[in-house]
Protein backbone atom coordinates (compact mmCIF):
# COMPACT_ATOMS: atom_id res chain seq x y z
CA UNK A 1 0.00 0.00 0.00
CA UNK A 2 1.28 3.41 -0.99
CA UNK A 3 0.12 6.34 1.07
CA UNK A 4 0.73 9.76 -0.44
CA UNK A 5 -0.07 12.74 1.68
CA UNK A 6 0.11 16.42 0.76
CA UNK A 7 3.02 16.09 -1.64
CA UNK A 8 4.05 19.35 -3.25
CA UNK A 9 6.77 19.80 -5.87
CA UNK A 10 7.98 23.13 -7.19
CA UNK A 11 10.26 23.90 -10.14
CA UNK A 12 10.81 27.64 -9.91
CA UNK A 13 7.41 29.14 -10.69
CA UNK A 14 5.82 25.84 -11.76
CA UNK A 15 4.03 23.66 -9.24
CA UNK A 16 3.59 20.30 -11.00
CA UNK A 17 2.37 18.64 -7.78
CA UNK A 18 0.25 20.78 -5.53
CA UNK A 19 -0.67 19.05 -2.28
CA UNK A 20 -1.35 15.66 -3.87
CA UNK A 21 -2.90 13.12 -1.51
CA UNK A 22 -3.94 9.66 -2.53
CA UNK A 23 -3.80 6.05 -1.39
CA UNK A 24 -2.96 3.22 -3.77
CA UNK A 25 -4.37 0.17 -2.02
CA UNK A 26 -3.08 -2.90 -3.86
CA UNK A 27 -2.98 -4.71 -7.17
CA UNK A 28 -2.88 -2.51 -10.25
CA UNK A 29 -3.81 1.13 -9.88
CA UNK A 30 -4.22 3.60 -12.70
CA UNK A 31 -2.96 7.17 -12.62
CA UNK A 32 -4.38 9.33 -15.37
CA UNK A 33 -4.65 12.99 -16.20
CA UNK A 34 -4.17 15.41 -19.07
CA UNK A 35 -0.71 16.24 -20.45
CA UNK A 36 1.35 18.13 -17.92
CA UNK A 37 -0.85 17.06 -15.01
CA UNK A 38 2.16 15.88 -13.02
CA UNK A 39 2.04 12.10 -13.49
CA UNK A 40 5.69 11.69 -14.49
CA UNK A 41 6.71 14.15 -11.80
CA UNK A 42 4.95 11.96 -9.25
CA UNK A 43 6.89 8.93 -10.51
CA UNK A 44 10.08 10.96 -10.25
CA UNK A 45 9.24 11.70 -6.63
CA UNK A 46 8.74 7.99 -5.97
CA UNK A 47 12.08 7.24 -7.69
CA UNK A 48 13.85 9.92 -5.71
CA UNK A 49 14.87 12.14 -8.65
CA UNK A 50 12.69 14.97 -7.46
CA UNK A 51 12.51 16.05 -3.83
CA UNK A 52 9.12 17.40 -2.80
CA UNK A 53 9.07 20.62 -0.77
CA UNK A 54 6.33 19.18 1.42
CA UNK A 55 4.44 15.96 2.08
CA UNK A 56 5.12 12.36 2.99
CA UNK A 57 4.99 9.05 1.18
CA UNK A 58 4.72 5.76 3.02
CA UNK A 59 5.26 2.59 1.04
CA UNK A 60 4.33 -0.65 2.79
CA UNK A 61 4.88 1.06 6.10
CA UNK A 62 8.27 2.60 5.27
CA UNK A 63 9.09 6.25 4.74
CA UNK A 64 10.07 6.24 1.08
CA UNK A 65 11.33 9.82 0.90
CA UNK A 66 14.09 9.08 3.41
CA UNK A 67 15.72 6.53 1.07
CA UNK A 68 18.57 7.49 -1.31
CA UNK A 69 17.43 7.21 -4.95
CA UNK A 70 19.54 4.30 -6.14
CA UNK A 71 18.71 2.32 -3.01
CA UNK A 72 15.00 2.52 -3.75
CA UNK A 73 15.45 0.16 -6.70
CA UNK A 74 17.19 -2.30 -4.38
CA UNK A 75 14.38 -1.92 -1.91
CA UNK A 76 11.86 -2.68 -4.63
CA UNK A 77 10.76 0.46 -6.49
CA UNK A 78 11.07 -0.29 -10.21
CA UNK A 79 9.96 1.69 -13.18
CA UNK A 80 9.85 2.21 -16.90
CA UNK A 81 10.26 5.61 -18.46
CA UNK A 82 8.23 7.53 -20.99
CA UNK A 83 11.25 7.41 -23.31
CA UNK A 84 12.81 4.07 -24.05
CA UNK A 85 15.63 3.02 -21.73
CA UNK A 86 16.61 -0.54 -22.73
CA UNK A 87 20.33 -0.53 -23.51
CA UNK A 88 20.90 -1.27 -27.18
CA UNK A 89 24.43 -2.63 -27.13
CA UNK A 90 23.66 -5.17 -24.41
CA UNK A 91 21.70 -8.36 -24.81
CA UNK A 92 18.20 -8.90 -23.47
CA UNK A 93 19.72 -11.10 -20.78
CA UNK A 94 22.29 -8.50 -19.73
CA UNK A 95 19.67 -5.75 -19.69
CA UNK A 96 17.58 -7.68 -17.22
CA UNK A 97 20.47 -9.23 -15.28
CA UNK A 98 21.86 -5.77 -14.61
CA UNK A 99 18.87 -4.92 -12.43
CA UNK A 100 19.25 -8.21 -10.60
CA UNK A 101 22.94 -7.71 -9.89
CA UNK A 102 22.23 -4.33 -8.28
CA UNK A 103 19.39 -5.67 -6.17
CA UNK A 104 19.60 -7.46 -2.85
CA UNK A 105 19.17 -10.79 -4.61
CA UNK A 106 21.87 -13.44 -4.46
CA UNK A 107 23.86 -14.22 -7.59
CA UNK A 108 23.07 -17.92 -7.38
CA UNK A 109 19.47 -17.46 -8.43
CA UNK A 110 20.31 -14.83 -11.06
CA UNK A 111 20.11 -16.93 -14.20
CA UNK A 112 16.87 -18.51 -13.18
CA UNK A 113 15.30 -15.22 -12.09
CA UNK A 114 16.40 -13.35 -15.21
CA UNK A 115 15.21 -16.02 -17.62
CA UNK A 116 12.03 -16.27 -15.56
CA UNK A 117 11.38 -12.54 -15.99
CA UNK A 118 12.07 -12.75 -19.73
CA UNK A 119 9.67 -15.66 -19.95
CA UNK A 120 7.11 -13.82 -17.85
CA UNK A 121 6.85 -10.99 -20.38
CA UNK A 122 6.66 -13.66 -23.12
CA UNK A 123 9.64 -12.42 -25.09
CA UNK A 124 10.20 -15.02 -27.75
CA UNK A 125 13.54 -15.82 -29.33
CA UNK A 126 17.16 -15.83 -28.17
CA UNK A 127 17.57 -14.14 -24.78
CA UNK A 128 21.19 -13.39 -25.73
CA UNK A 129 20.19 -11.33 -28.77
CA UNK A 130 21.23 -7.68 -28.62
CA UNK A 131 18.40 -5.29 -27.82
CA UNK A 132 19.46 -3.31 -30.91
CA UNK A 133 17.99 -6.06 -33.08
CA UNK A 134 14.52 -5.91 -31.50
CA UNK A 135 11.41 -4.08 -32.61
CA UNK A 136 9.74 -1.35 -30.56
CA UNK A 137 7.19 -3.66 -28.95
CA UNK A 138 9.82 -6.18 -27.89
CA UNK A 139 12.02 -3.47 -26.42
CA UNK A 140 9.07 -2.33 -24.36
CA UNK A 141 8.79 -5.89 -23.06
CA UNK A 142 12.50 -5.85 -22.16
CA UNK A 143 11.83 -2.75 -20.07
CA UNK A 144 8.93 -4.45 -18.33
CA UNK A 145 11.14 -7.51 -17.69
CA UNK A 146 13.72 -5.18 -16.13
CA UNK A 147 11.00 -3.74 -13.91
CA UNK A 148 9.77 -7.10 -12.62
CA UNK A 149 12.96 -9.17 -12.23
CA UNK A 150 14.01 -10.23 -8.76
CA UNK A 151 11.69 -9.14 -6.01
CA UNK A 152 9.95 -5.89 -6.96
CA UNK A 153 7.50 -4.35 -4.52
CA UNK A 154 6.22 -1.42 -6.54
CA UNK A 155 6.32 -1.28 -10.34
CA UNK A 156 5.75 2.10 -11.98
CA UNK A 157 4.85 2.02 -15.66
CA UNK A 158 4.93 5.36 -17.45
CA UNK A 159 2.88 5.12 -20.65
CA UNK A 160 4.07 1.61 -21.55
CA UNK A 161 1.60 1.29 -24.43
CA UNK A 162 2.34 4.64 -26.08
CA UNK A 163 2.89 4.21 -29.80
CA UNK A 164 2.31 0.46 -29.86
CA UNK A 165 -0.03 -1.16 -32.41
CA UNK A 166 -3.20 -2.77 -31.06
CA UNK A 167 -2.07 -6.39 -30.92
CA UNK A 168 1.12 -5.49 -29.06
CA UNK A 169 -0.90 -3.40 -26.62
CA UNK A 170 -3.05 -6.49 -26.12
CA UNK A 171 0.01 -8.59 -25.32
CA UNK A 172 1.32 -5.93 -22.95
CA UNK A 173 -2.07 -5.76 -21.24
CA UNK A 174 -1.92 -9.46 -20.39
CA UNK A 175 1.63 -9.10 -19.10
CA UNK A 176 0.78 -6.15 -16.87
CA UNK A 177 -2.29 -7.92 -15.56
CA UNK A 178 -0.10 -10.80 -14.38
CA UNK A 179 2.42 -8.70 -12.42
CA UNK A 180 0.72 -8.65 -8.99
CA UNK A 181 -0.03 -12.35 -8.96
CA UNK A 182 3.16 -13.71 -10.55
CA UNK A 183 5.74 -11.16 -9.43
CA UNK A 184 4.12 -10.14 -6.18
CA UNK A 185 4.35 -6.43 -6.81
CA UNK A 186 1.91 -3.57 -6.72
CA UNK A 187 1.64 -1.65 -10.00
CA UNK A 188 0.90 1.98 -10.77
CA UNK A 189 0.09 2.45 -14.43
CA UNK A 190 0.16 5.81 -16.17
CA UNK A 191 -1.36 5.76 -19.64
CA UNK A 192 -3.49 7.80 -21.95
CA UNK A 193 -5.08 4.65 -23.39
CA UNK A 194 -8.32 4.49 -21.42
CA UNK A 195 -9.26 1.06 -22.71
CA UNK A 196 -5.97 -0.29 -21.32
CA UNK A 197 -6.48 1.47 -18.01
CA UNK A 198 -10.05 0.26 -17.61
CA UNK A 199 -9.06 -3.27 -18.60
CA UNK A 200 -6.29 -3.74 -16.02
CA UNK A 201 -6.81 -1.24 -13.18
CA UNK A 202 -9.10 -1.99 -10.29
CA UNK A 203 -8.79 1.55 -9.02
CA UNK A 204 -7.72 4.73 -10.74
CA UNK A 205 -6.65 8.15 -9.54
CA UNK A 206 -6.96 11.27 -11.65
CA UNK A 207 -4.48 14.12 -11.50
CA UNK A 208 -5.17 17.58 -12.84
CA UNK A 209 -2.80 20.51 -12.40
CA UNK A 210 -0.95 18.58 -9.72
CA UNK A 211 -4.01 17.96 -7.60
CA UNK A 212 -6.01 14.81 -7.06
CA UNK A 213 -9.26 15.25 -8.97
CA UNK A 214 -10.85 11.90 -8.23
CA UNK A 215 -9.96 8.37 -7.16
CA UNK A 216 -11.86 5.14 -6.76
CA UNK A 217 -13.01 2.13 -8.77
CA UNK A 218 -11.91 2.68 -12.39
CA UNK A 219 -15.32 2.47 -14.02
CA UNK A 220 -16.81 5.02 -11.62
CA UNK A 221 -13.89 7.40 -11.98
CA UNK A 222 -14.06 7.34 -15.76
CA UNK A 223 -17.76 8.24 -15.59
CA UNK A 224 -17.12 11.17 -13.26
CA UNK A 225 -18.27 14.52 -14.70
CA UNK A 226 -15.22 16.42 -13.50
CA UNK A 227 -12.84 13.85 -15.00
CA UNK A 228 -14.54 14.05 -18.37
CA UNK A 229 -14.38 17.83 -18.24
CA UNK A 230 -10.66 17.81 -17.35
CA UNK A 231 -9.98 15.62 -20.34
CA UNK A 232 -12.19 17.52 -22.82
CA UNK A 233 -10.17 18.90 -25.64
CA UNK A 234 -7.12 16.82 -24.76
CA UNK A 235 -8.15 13.17 -24.75
CA UNK A 236 -11.21 11.06 -25.38
CA UNK A 237 -12.49 9.10 -22.43
CA UNK A 238 -13.33 5.65 -23.66
Amino acid at each position, binding site marked *: MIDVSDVTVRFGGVTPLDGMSVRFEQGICGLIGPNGAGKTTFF*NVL*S*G*FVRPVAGTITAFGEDLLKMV*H*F*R*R*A*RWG*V*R*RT*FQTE*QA*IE*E*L*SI*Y*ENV*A*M*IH*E*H*SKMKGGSR*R*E*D*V*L*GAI*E*FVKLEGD*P*YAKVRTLGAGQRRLVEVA*RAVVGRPRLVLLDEPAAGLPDEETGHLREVIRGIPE*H*MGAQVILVDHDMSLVSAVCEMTAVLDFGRLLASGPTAEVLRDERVIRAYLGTEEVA
Partner: protein
Amino acid sequence: MTSAGVRTNARPAWLSQTREPRTLIRLAVIVLLLLFVLLALPSMLSLYYVDAMIQVAVYTVVALGLGILVGRVGLVSLGQAAVLAIGAWVSARLLFATSLSFPIVLLASGLVTMVLGTLVGLPALRMRGLYLALITLMLAGAITVVLSTTNFPNGGHGFLGYNGGNVHVPPIRRPSIAATDQAFFRYTVVVSILMFFLVLAHVRGRPGRAWASIRQSESAALAAGINTTLYKLWALALAAFITGVAGGLLAGGQRYLYSIDFVTQDSIILLAVVLMGGAYSMWGAIIAGLLYKFLPALLNNWGVSSDWLTILFGIGVLQALTTAPAGIVDQFPKDMARLGRRLRGLVKRRPPARGEAG
Protein backbone atom coordinates in the same frame (compact mmCIF):
# COMPACT_ATOMS: atom_id res chain seq x y z
CA MET B 1 6.48 -17.29 -11.00
CA THR B 2 6.86 -19.51 -14.03
CA SER B 3 9.77 -21.90 -13.86
CA ALA B 4 12.79 -20.96 -15.92
CA GLY B 5 14.32 -24.40 -15.86
CA VAL B 6 12.17 -25.40 -18.81
CA ARG B 7 14.19 -23.22 -21.12
CA THR B 8 16.94 -25.72 -21.83
CA ASN B 9 18.07 -24.19 -25.10
CA ALA B 10 19.23 -21.05 -23.31
CA ARG B 11 23.02 -20.74 -23.19
CA PRO B 12 24.95 -19.19 -20.33
CA ALA B 13 26.25 -15.72 -21.13
CA TRP B 14 29.90 -16.68 -21.45
CA LEU B 15 29.10 -19.43 -23.94
CA SER B 16 27.10 -17.18 -26.18
CA GLN B 17 30.17 -15.00 -26.51
CA THR B 18 32.67 -17.65 -27.47
CA ARG B 19 30.72 -20.24 -29.38
CA GLU B 20 30.45 -18.70 -32.81
CA PRO B 21 33.17 -19.73 -35.27
CA ARG B 22 33.68 -16.06 -36.20
CA THR B 23 34.85 -15.39 -32.67
CA LEU B 24 37.39 -18.20 -32.91
CA ILE B 25 38.71 -16.84 -36.19
CA ARG B 26 38.95 -13.40 -34.66
CA LEU B 27 40.82 -14.85 -31.71
CA ALA B 28 43.28 -16.60 -34.02
CA VAL B 29 43.87 -13.38 -35.96
CA ILE B 30 44.55 -11.51 -32.73
CA VAL B 31 47.04 -14.12 -31.55
CA LEU B 32 48.87 -14.15 -34.90
CA LEU B 33 48.96 -10.37 -34.97
CA LEU B 34 50.39 -10.28 -31.46
CA LEU B 35 53.04 -12.87 -32.28
CA PHE B 36 54.02 -10.82 -35.32
CA VAL B 37 54.22 -7.61 -33.30
CA LEU B 38 56.21 -9.25 -30.52
CA LEU B 39 58.58 -11.46 -32.51
CA ALA B 40 59.00 -10.14 -36.03
CA LEU B 41 58.20 -6.45 -36.02
CA PRO B 42 61.03 -5.08 -33.81
CA SER B 43 63.76 -6.66 -35.95
CA MET B 44 62.14 -5.38 -39.14
CA LEU B 45 62.11 -1.75 -38.08
CA SER B 46 64.85 0.82 -37.79
CA LEU B 47 65.55 2.23 -34.33
CA TYR B 48 63.65 5.36 -35.32
CA TYR B 49 60.47 3.39 -35.88
CA VAL B 50 61.03 1.09 -32.89
CA ASP B 51 61.09 4.22 -30.78
CA ALA B 52 57.92 5.43 -32.48
CA MET B 53 56.23 2.08 -31.89
CA ILE B 54 57.05 2.17 -28.17
CA GLN B 55 55.17 5.44 -28.05
CA VAL B 56 52.34 3.98 -30.12
CA ALA B 57 51.95 1.23 -27.52
CA VAL B 58 52.08 3.74 -24.68
CA TYR B 59 49.45 5.99 -26.23
CA THR B 60 47.29 3.03 -27.15
CA VAL B 61 46.94 2.41 -23.42
CA VAL B 62 46.23 6.10 -22.80
CA ALA B 63 43.61 6.03 -25.58
CA LEU B 64 42.12 2.92 -24.06
CA GLY B 65 41.65 4.79 -20.79
CA LEU B 66 40.16 7.82 -22.48
CA GLY B 67 37.94 5.47 -24.49
CA ILE B 68 36.45 4.12 -21.25
CA LEU B 69 35.56 7.62 -20.14
CA VAL B 70 34.29 8.95 -23.47
CA GLY B 71 32.96 5.81 -25.12
CA ARG B 72 31.68 3.73 -22.24
CA VAL B 73 30.53 6.23 -19.65
CA GLY B 74 30.07 9.32 -21.80
CA LEU B 75 32.46 11.58 -19.86
CA VAL B 76 34.47 13.82 -22.16
CA SER B 77 37.71 14.47 -20.29
CA LEU B 78 40.46 16.66 -21.66
CA GLY B 79 42.83 15.95 -18.81
CA GLN B 80 44.26 12.58 -19.81
CA ALA B 81 47.54 13.83 -21.27
CA ALA B 82 48.22 15.54 -17.96
CA VAL B 83 47.35 12.33 -16.14
CA LEU B 84 49.94 10.60 -18.32
CA ALA B 85 52.48 13.24 -17.36
CA ILE B 86 51.75 12.54 -13.70
CA GLY B 87 52.34 8.84 -14.31
CA ALA B 88 55.62 9.55 -16.08
CA TRP B 89 56.77 11.87 -13.29
CA VAL B 90 55.94 9.41 -10.52
CA SER B 91 57.66 6.54 -12.35
CA ALA B 92 60.76 8.57 -13.10
CA ARG B 93 60.95 9.64 -9.47
CA LEU B 94 60.62 6.07 -8.23
CA LEU B 95 63.08 4.70 -10.79
CA PHE B 96 65.73 7.22 -9.73
CA ALA B 97 65.09 7.16 -6.02
CA THR B 98 64.59 3.44 -5.41
CA SER B 99 65.88 0.15 -6.68
CA LEU B 100 62.38 -1.31 -6.91
CA SER B 101 61.91 -3.63 -9.83
CA PHE B 102 60.31 -2.12 -12.94
CA PRO B 103 56.95 -3.93 -12.67
CA ILE B 104 56.61 -2.75 -9.07
CA VAL B 105 57.34 0.79 -10.19
CA LEU B 106 54.69 0.51 -12.89
CA LEU B 107 52.18 -0.77 -10.36
CA ALA B 108 53.03 1.96 -7.85
CA SER B 109 52.87 4.61 -10.53
CA GLY B 110 49.50 3.27 -11.64
CA LEU B 111 48.18 3.46 -8.09
CA VAL B 112 49.49 6.95 -7.33
CA THR B 113 48.22 8.21 -10.67
CA MET B 114 44.91 6.53 -9.99
CA VAL B 115 44.44 8.69 -6.91
CA LEU B 116 45.61 11.94 -8.53
CA GLY B 117 43.92 11.26 -11.85
CA THR B 118 40.61 10.52 -10.17
CA LEU B 119 40.89 13.93 -8.50
CA VAL B 120 41.33 15.53 -11.93
CA GLY B 121 38.18 13.75 -13.03
CA LEU B 122 36.13 14.56 -9.93
CA PRO B 123 34.16 17.34 -11.68
CA ALA B 124 32.65 14.51 -13.74
CA LEU B 125 30.49 13.65 -10.74
CA ARG B 126 28.75 16.99 -11.06
CA MET B 127 28.85 17.91 -14.72
CA ARG B 128 28.98 16.56 -18.21
CA GLY B 129 29.58 17.61 -21.78
CA LEU B 130 31.21 20.94 -22.56
CA TYR B 131 31.54 22.05 -18.93
CA LEU B 132 33.34 18.89 -17.97
CA ALA B 133 35.60 19.14 -21.02
CA LEU B 134 36.52 22.73 -20.16
CA ILE B 135 37.17 22.17 -16.49
CA THR B 136 39.32 19.09 -17.09
CA LEU B 137 41.24 21.06 -19.71
CA MET B 138 41.88 23.79 -17.16
CA LEU B 139 43.05 21.25 -14.60
CA ALA B 140 45.33 19.73 -17.24
CA GLY B 141 46.69 23.22 -17.90
CA ALA B 142 47.34 23.71 -14.20
CA ILE B 143 49.22 20.40 -14.00
CA THR B 144 51.31 21.39 -17.02
CA VAL B 145 52.22 24.65 -15.32
CA VAL B 146 53.23 22.84 -12.14
CA LEU B 147 55.33 20.36 -14.10
CA SER B 148 57.10 23.12 -15.99
CA THR B 149 58.29 24.58 -12.70
CA THR B 150 59.11 21.30 -10.92
CA ASN B 151 60.56 19.65 -14.05
CA PHE B 152 60.88 15.91 -14.41
CA PRO B 153 63.19 14.02 -12.06
CA ASN B 154 66.65 13.52 -13.53
CA GLY B 155 68.55 11.89 -10.74
CA GLY B 156 68.71 14.80 -8.31
CA HIS B 157 67.87 14.78 -4.61
CA GLY B 158 64.95 16.01 -2.57
CA PHE B 159 61.29 15.49 -3.23
CA LEU B 160 61.46 16.73 -6.82
CA GLY B 161 64.62 14.87 -7.75
CA TYR B 162 65.61 17.59 -10.21
CA ASN B 163 69.26 18.42 -10.72
CA GLY B 164 69.11 21.46 -12.92
CA GLY B 165 69.34 21.47 -16.67
CA ASN B 166 73.06 21.62 -17.35
CA VAL B 167 74.50 18.82 -15.27
CA HIS B 168 75.29 15.42 -16.64
CA VAL B 169 71.95 13.63 -16.53
CA PRO B 170 71.70 9.84 -16.19
CA PRO B 171 69.06 8.09 -18.28
CA ILE B 172 65.94 6.67 -16.66
CA ARG B 173 66.44 3.05 -15.66
CA ARG B 174 64.98 0.22 -17.71
CA PRO B 175 64.32 -3.36 -16.61
CA SER B 176 67.41 -5.52 -17.17
CA ILE B 177 65.49 -7.87 -19.45
CA ALA B 178 64.49 -4.96 -21.63
CA ALA B 179 67.58 -2.80 -21.91
CA THR B 180 67.63 -2.39 -25.69
CA ASP B 181 64.97 -0.46 -27.58
CA GLN B 182 63.70 -3.59 -29.29
CA ALA B 183 63.42 -5.46 -26.00
CA PHE B 184 61.75 -2.50 -24.32
CA PHE B 185 59.25 -2.36 -27.15
CA ARG B 186 58.33 -6.00 -26.51
CA TYR B 187 58.11 -5.27 -22.80
CA THR B 188 55.80 -2.34 -23.49
CA VAL B 189 53.56 -4.41 -25.74
CA VAL B 190 53.26 -7.14 -23.11
CA VAL B 191 52.31 -4.64 -20.41
CA SER B 192 49.86 -3.01 -22.80
CA ILE B 193 48.22 -6.37 -23.44
CA LEU B 194 47.82 -6.83 -19.69
CA MET B 195 46.14 -3.42 -19.53
CA PHE B 196 43.79 -4.48 -22.35
CA PHE B 197 42.85 -7.58 -20.41
CA LEU B 198 42.25 -5.53 -17.29
CA VAL B 199 39.93 -3.22 -19.21
CA LEU B 200 38.24 -6.11 -21.00
CA ALA B 201 37.45 -7.77 -17.69
CA HIS B 202 35.79 -4.57 -16.54
CA VAL B 203 33.90 -3.85 -19.73
CA ARG B 204 32.53 -7.38 -20.02
CA GLY B 205 31.52 -7.49 -16.39
CA ARG B 206 29.34 -5.70 -13.93
CA PRO B 207 31.07 -2.29 -14.24
CA GLY B 208 30.76 -2.39 -18.04
CA ARG B 209 27.03 -2.95 -17.83
CA ALA B 210 26.67 -0.21 -15.24
CA TRP B 211 28.67 2.20 -17.45
CA ALA B 212 26.52 1.40 -20.47
CA SER B 213 23.49 2.17 -18.39
CA ILE B 214 24.91 5.48 -17.14
CA ARG B 215 25.80 6.51 -20.68
CA GLN B 216 22.28 5.76 -21.83
CA SER B 217 20.62 7.75 -19.09
CA GLU B 218 21.68 8.67 -15.62
CA SER B 219 18.17 8.51 -14.17
CA ALA B 220 17.48 5.14 -15.75
CA ALA B 221 20.72 3.89 -14.19
CA LEU B 222 19.66 5.17 -10.78
CA ALA B 223 16.24 3.59 -11.24
CA ALA B 224 18.05 0.33 -11.96
CA GLY B 225 19.71 0.56 -8.54
CA ILE B 226 23.12 1.58 -9.87
CA ASN B 227 25.21 3.79 -7.64
CA THR B 228 26.19 6.12 -10.46
CA THR B 229 28.70 8.08 -8.38
CA LEU B 230 30.57 4.92 -7.46
CA TYR B 231 30.71 3.62 -11.03
CA LYS B 232 31.82 6.95 -12.48
CA LEU B 233 34.61 7.07 -9.89
CA TRP B 234 35.46 3.51 -10.81
CA ALA B 235 35.80 4.43 -14.50
CA LEU B 236 37.93 7.46 -13.66
CA ALA B 237 40.12 5.35 -11.40
CA LEU B 238 40.59 2.59 -13.96
CA ALA B 239 41.40 5.06 -16.74
CA ALA B 240 43.89 6.88 -14.50
CA PHE B 241 45.46 3.62 -13.34
CA ILE B 242 46.26 2.34 -16.81
CA THR B 243 47.36 5.82 -17.88
CA GLY B 244 49.73 5.87 -14.91
CA VAL B 245 51.19 2.54 -15.98
CA ALA B 246 51.53 3.95 -19.49
CA GLY B 247 53.39 6.89 -17.97
CA GLY B 248 55.92 4.47 -16.51
CA LEU B 249 56.39 2.85 -19.90
CA LEU B 250 56.84 6.28 -21.44
CA ALA B 251 59.52 7.14 -18.89
CA GLY B 252 61.38 3.90 -19.58
CA GLY B 253 60.96 4.31 -23.31
CA GLN B 254 62.13 7.92 -23.55
CA ARG B 255 64.83 7.61 -20.85
CA TYR B 256 64.89 11.40 -20.55
CA LEU B 257 61.76 13.41 -19.78
CA TYR B 258 61.39 17.17 -20.30
CA SER B 259 58.41 19.19 -19.24
CA ILE B 260 58.34 21.03 -22.57
CA ASP B 261 57.32 17.75 -24.18
CA PHE B 262 54.10 17.76 -22.19
CA VAL B 263 51.78 20.48 -23.43
CA THR B 264 48.14 21.01 -22.63
CA GLN B 265 46.90 20.80 -26.21
CA ASP B 266 48.08 17.18 -26.32
CA SER B 267 44.93 16.36 -24.38
CA ILE B 268 42.79 17.83 -27.13
CA ILE B 269 44.63 15.99 -29.90
CA LEU B 270 44.39 12.83 -27.85
CA LEU B 271 40.62 13.20 -27.67
CA ALA B 272 40.60 13.87 -31.42
CA VAL B 273 42.45 10.66 -32.28
CA VAL B 274 40.33 8.64 -29.84
CA LEU B 275 37.17 9.91 -31.54
CA MET B 276 38.68 9.24 -34.96
CA GLY B 277 39.82 5.73 -34.05
CA GLY B 278 36.57 4.85 -32.36
CA ALA B 279 35.85 5.46 -28.70
CA TYR B 280 33.41 2.57 -28.38
CA SER B 281 35.83 -0.16 -29.35
CA MET B 282 39.07 -1.44 -27.91
CA TRP B 283 40.51 -1.73 -31.41
CA GLY B 284 39.83 1.96 -31.77
CA ALA B 285 42.48 2.58 -29.11
CA ILE B 286 45.14 0.92 -31.26
CA ILE B 287 44.16 3.03 -34.26
CA ALA B 288 44.25 6.10 -32.03
CA GLY B 289 47.77 5.20 -30.88
CA LEU B 290 48.92 4.77 -34.49
CA LEU B 291 47.35 8.04 -35.57
CA TYR B 292 48.85 9.87 -32.65
CA LYS B 293 52.44 8.59 -32.75
CA PHE B 294 53.09 6.51 -35.86
CA LEU B 295 51.62 8.87 -38.44
CA PRO B 296 53.70 11.87 -37.25
CA ALA B 297 56.85 9.71 -37.25
CA LEU B 298 56.08 8.64 -40.80
CA LEU B 299 55.37 12.17 -42.02
CA ASN B 300 58.43 13.47 -40.23
CA ASN B 301 60.55 10.84 -41.95
CA TRP B 302 59.09 11.88 -45.29
CA GLY B 303 59.83 15.51 -44.52
CA VAL B 304 56.17 16.59 -44.39
CA SER B 305 55.41 19.45 -42.02
CA SER B 306 53.54 18.40 -38.88
CA ASP B 307 51.10 21.30 -39.39
CA TRP B 308 49.38 19.11 -41.94
CA LEU B 309 48.65 16.65 -39.15
CA THR B 310 46.75 19.21 -37.13
CA ILE B 311 44.64 19.97 -40.18
CA LEU B 312 44.17 16.27 -40.88
CA PHE B 313 43.08 15.59 -37.31
CA GLY B 314 40.68 18.50 -37.48
CA ILE B 315 39.07 17.12 -40.61
CA GLY B 316 39.15 13.61 -39.17
CA VAL B 317 37.27 14.64 -36.04
CA LEU B 318 34.67 16.49 -38.07
CA GLN B 319 34.24 13.43 -40.24
CA ALA B 320 34.03 11.16 -37.20
CA LEU B 321 31.45 13.34 -35.48
CA THR B 322 29.29 13.91 -38.54
CA THR B 323 29.34 10.68 -40.53
CA ALA B 324 31.10 7.97 -38.55
CA PRO B 325 30.43 8.44 -34.85
CA ALA B 326 31.86 5.00 -34.04
CA GLY B 327 35.20 5.94 -35.63
CA ILE B 328 37.52 4.35 -38.16
CA VAL B 329 37.33 0.96 -36.48
CA ASP B 330 33.65 0.82 -37.35
CA GLN B 331 33.76 2.72 -40.62
CA PHE B 332 36.72 1.02 -42.29
CA PRO B 333 35.18 -2.48 -42.60
CA LYS B 334 31.98 -0.92 -43.98
CA ASP B 335 33.95 1.08 -46.55
CA MET B 336 35.94 -2.01 -47.49
CA ALA B 337 32.75 -4.04 -47.89
CA ARG B 338 31.33 -1.31 -50.10
CA LEU B 339 34.55 -1.20 -52.13
CA GLY B 340 34.51 -4.97 -52.45
CA ARG B 341 30.96 -4.90 -53.75
CA ARG B 342 31.93 -2.21 -56.28
CA LEU B 343 34.94 -4.19 -57.46
CA ARG B 344 32.94 -7.36 -57.75
CA GLY B 345 30.38 -5.41 -59.76
CA LEU B 346 33.14 -4.20 -62.07
CA VAL B 347 34.67 -7.62 -62.54
CA LYS B 348 31.35 -9.24 -63.26
CA ARG B 349 30.56 -6.61 -65.91
CA ARG B 350 26.92 -6.55 -66.90
CA PRO B 351 25.70 -9.26 -64.54
CA PRO B 352 22.62 -11.11 -65.75
CA ALA B 353 19.46 -9.22 -64.89
CA ARG B 354 19.31 -10.23 -61.26
CA GLY B 355 18.39 -7.58 -58.73
CA GLU B 356 21.52 -6.89 -56.72
CA ALA B 357 21.95 -4.20 -54.14
CA GLY B 358 24.96 -1.92 -54.07
